Structure formats: C-alpha cells, structure tokens
C-alpha cells in the first residue's frame, strides 16, 4: 500500500465526460441507509463509477457537479417547507427520478406523525418546539412531483438498486417484481414460519425484494418493503389474529416504515376499528 502526502485543498480530478450518463443522489428526511447502499456495493462501486458519472452525491463526494442529471436517486420524505421547494428543483434537473427506500416511497417511519399531532411530537423532543420548521405530514416524493420509478425497502436491497440503475441506463423495465415476499421465501427454500412455527408474518401482503430475509432468520416479515401488488390484508389479519395477535399489535405491525402506504394504512385502520374482528365474530 503506497503512502502519499497530499494537499489540503480539494482538487477536482473528474472531467465532465461526454456521453456518460450522470447520476445524482439526493437526501431528504431519512436515515442515509438507502444511499449508503450504493457505497455498500463494494464489488460494483468502481465499475459503476466507470460507467456513470456520479455527479452529485454529497455523502460520498465534495465536488457536486451541476445538473442536469440523467438519473436522480432520491432518498427521504418531504417534511419541511424548504424540502418542498428543493424536490421541485430536483425534478427539474433530472431526466429520470427514482425514489429509493420507504421514506421516499411511502413517507417512512417519520410519517407516523400522520397518526398523531406533529406539534405534540415536537414538544416531546424539544423544549422549545416553536423553532421547529416542520410540516404536519411526512409525504412521499410522488405526492409532490412525478416519479419515474419507486424502489422499495427499509432499507433498499443492494441487488435491486444495481438492477434499477442498470435498467434505467439500458432503457429497460427494472426487474423489480411487485409480488409477495412468499415467492422469494419459497425460492430461497425457507419453510413458511406461519405454517411451521405459528409465527405471524406480513410476507403475504409485502412486496418482495429483500430475498425473504426475516423468515430466513425464523422471524415473521415486518413489512419493510411495503405493500405488494394485490394485498389482501383483511384475510391475512384474520389469520394473524388466529395466531394470537391482538388489535393493538396488528395496528402497530402495519404502522412502522410504510405506515402511510395506502393498503397498510387501511389495514391498520380496519384492524383498529376492529371491523374485521366484528366480522369474524
């Protein structure tokens, strides 16, 4: 390993290369995990960097290149008035805009404020909540600007991220199926944890993508990839109740990282109103 003394001044070594697609990574309210996924592609990072110009990626680079960008990856939800404006800018400078992760796609865990009062939330955390410039709701990007593709997950899956990037660059449909986690669960060779262990699992109503991670670890899926294409939460809830889940547990299990994704919102609300429980009685 070589040693080299450097200067403190940052210099830009990357020239703007003609014809190379330009990638930007943006952050809104989030934990950084989804954009970190790009840096976690240890085996692919340098080849990706050779194929695309990583023109804007603050987490990784101190030389933000100017727009427009061919592909913008957007992490995080919109929670402040400034972000409302910034996302408009991002849309304007991006040819394709892809949201990455549950925050950007469904509002994220911070959207739990939707079920409460954000001012109360602020008061819990801060002595002088008046200073907090925040919106009442945490909204997904698609509620604010048109989005070309939404990549699910809390966090997103690395293979799927690479797939989306290559698909957009190749001009094809990303292979990101919207079916249930169960498809991957069975392909992986897991035994169903609901059937074999009686463990409640959201897999049947959750979109695949993680590779059925939780069941592989003897745990029920907790829905971090959000609702699948045709969720039948009502039918699942009946079974989850039969496996011993109480109404508050059911409400909570849908209210985590994709709480305001419509099918999950409905699932939690119908569990809460105990309509299903009544139906079953």
């Amino acid at each position, binding site marked *: 390993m070589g040693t080299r003394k450097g200067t403190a001044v940052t210099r830009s070594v990357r020239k703007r290369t003609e014809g190379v697609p330009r990638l930007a990574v943006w952050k809104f309210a989030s934990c950084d995990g989804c954009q970190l996924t790009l840096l976690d592609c240890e085996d692919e990072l340098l080849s990706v960097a050779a194929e695309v110009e990583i023109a804007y990626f603050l987490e990784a680079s101190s030389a933000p290149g100017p727009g427009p960008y061919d592909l913008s990856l957007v992490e995080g939800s919109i929670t402040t008035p400034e972000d409302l404006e910034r996302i408009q800018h991002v849309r304007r400078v991006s040819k394709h805009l892809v949201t990455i992760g549950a925050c950007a796609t469904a509002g994220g865990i911070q959207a739990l404020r939707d079920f409460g009062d954000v001012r109360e939330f602020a008061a819990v955390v801060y002595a002088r909540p008046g200073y907090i410039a925040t919106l009442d709701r945490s909204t997904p990007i698609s509620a604010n600007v048109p989005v070309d593709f939404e990549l699910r997950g809390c966090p997103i899956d690395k293979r799927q991220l690479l797939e989306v990037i290559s698909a957009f660059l190749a*001009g*094809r449909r990303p292979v990101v199926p919207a079916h249930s986690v169960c498809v991957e669960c069975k392909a992986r060779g897991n035994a169903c944890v609901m059937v074999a262990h009686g463990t409640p699992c959201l897999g049947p109503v959750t979109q695949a993508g993680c590779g059925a991670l939780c069941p592989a670890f003897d745990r029920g899926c907790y829905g971090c990839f959000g609702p699948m294409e045709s969720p039948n939460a009502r039918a699942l809830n009946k079974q989850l109740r039969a496996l011993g889940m109480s109404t508050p547990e059911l409400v909570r299990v849908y209210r985590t990282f994709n709480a305001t994704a419509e099918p999950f919102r409905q699932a939690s609300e119908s569990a809460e109103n105990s309509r299903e429980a009544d139906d079953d009685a």
Partner: protein
Amino acid sequence: MTPAPYRIRSRRPDRADTVTLTLEPVDGACPSFVPGQFTMLYAPGVGEIPISISGWFRPGGYVQTIRAVGAVSRALCHKRRGDVIGLRGPYGTGWDLSAAAGLDVVVAAGGLGLAPLRPVVRELTAHPSLYGRASVIVGARTPATVIYPQDLARWHDGHGIDVQVTVDHPDQAWTGPVGLVTHLLDRIVFEPRRTFAFVCGPDAMIKATAVELVRRGVDPRRTAVLLERNMKCGIGRCGHCQLGPLFVCLDGPVVTYDVAAPLLAVREL
C-alpha cells in the same frame, strides 16, 4: 431457448411508433414459416417478446412489424440496420389458407392486427384464381395508425381486392368511413355460407367481428382468429399464455372461432 442471432437487413419506420424490420440469420438458413406464426424477438439485455411474421423475403428472412409500446418493443424499434438481435421460432399455428380454397375470403384487421394478416393477402394476390371474392377490412384508432398504407393501395388498385378502412377518430383529411370495423362488413360483398374469414386485432375487436360474421352465416369453423396473450417462452413452458385449455403459443395463436368463442366469453380466463 437460445435465440439465434439475426441481422437487421433493413428498417422502415411505418408510423410514428411502428417500425418494420427485415431480419436475416447471421449464419445458417432461415426456417420457413406459415403465415400467422410468430417469433420471439430478443433485444439483448432488455427482453424477449412475441412478434408475428408479416412477410418473407428471398433468399431467406422475415419481415416483422413492431409497435413500440413498452421497453422491449421500444428497444427493438430503436435498433438500426446492421444491428444483431436474437430470434427464436417460428412458433405457433398459422392461418389455414388451404381451408379457404374456393371460398370468398374476408380479411379483418384491427390496428396492428394487419401485420400477421399481410402474408394472407399476399397469398390472395399471388394466387387469385384459387379463391373467390377477396376483401380486406381494416379498423384503426386514427388515420395515422393505419399500417401498410401502400400495401393497402396496391392490393386495391393492382389486385382488385376490395380494401376498406375505417377509423375511430378521423382527422381533417379523412374522407373514409368512421366507426367500428364491423360496420365495414356491410360494404363488402361475400357469400357468408361460402366464406372463410381471417380476423386479427385486440380481443374486443375479434369478438365483435366474429360474432357479426357468424350472425351473417359464416361458419365459426371457417372464422380464424389470432389471439394474443402474455408470452415469455413461446413453446408452452412458461405457462403465461394459457387461455383455458389452450396454450396460445402452441395451440394458437391462430384458432378457429368455434374454439375461441367459449373461451373469450369467460371473464378473466
């Protein structure tokens, strides 16, 4: 399941979103085909889709017309002369032209449905004596989406085939009929009991046209229709194209209406 490499010998834009490619094998001979059959065209890295064969050229190659509606079809439409793509097939059943011998022939197309019917009309023009009266009726959304306008004109003017075109949404220049393709049945001459019909288009168009033909007395067994279903393999293995008991890729895409009618009647089959 391995596509053979085919080179794009020529590329002709037909309409704003439609392109006709002629394809010849990079090496080896091009398998012969029956009109109505399709091939699986592979745009490398993008995907593979079923496309009907709409013609043949010598010494051996296919003419195929593709409308860009999604990722794969768009990628194929964007290919240029000299590019190599993958091709499997031809697959599926074809139009049974021998069954039409000696009969009046009605060719009914909805939109791009004319593509797989083109070789049928070519046969009619090549051997007019083998058939009775021949008519081609075409329905399209707008005048701009009518494909093969030159062919239509030539068939009409040069070969005495009765060609009629109707559109749903006319533009300023349009002087022809407006409305459903079934209305054109009133404008052509055929003897229903001695007629063979070839029908291709969206499910709804097929149903409406076939129903009308049968009502007028055409034998459902002499009404051939070309069905479209999602296909991933083209050889009866992926299961996607099932229509009740049929694998559309193997038992179709061309079937007679007596077979298709009960199946098309069932919702979500």
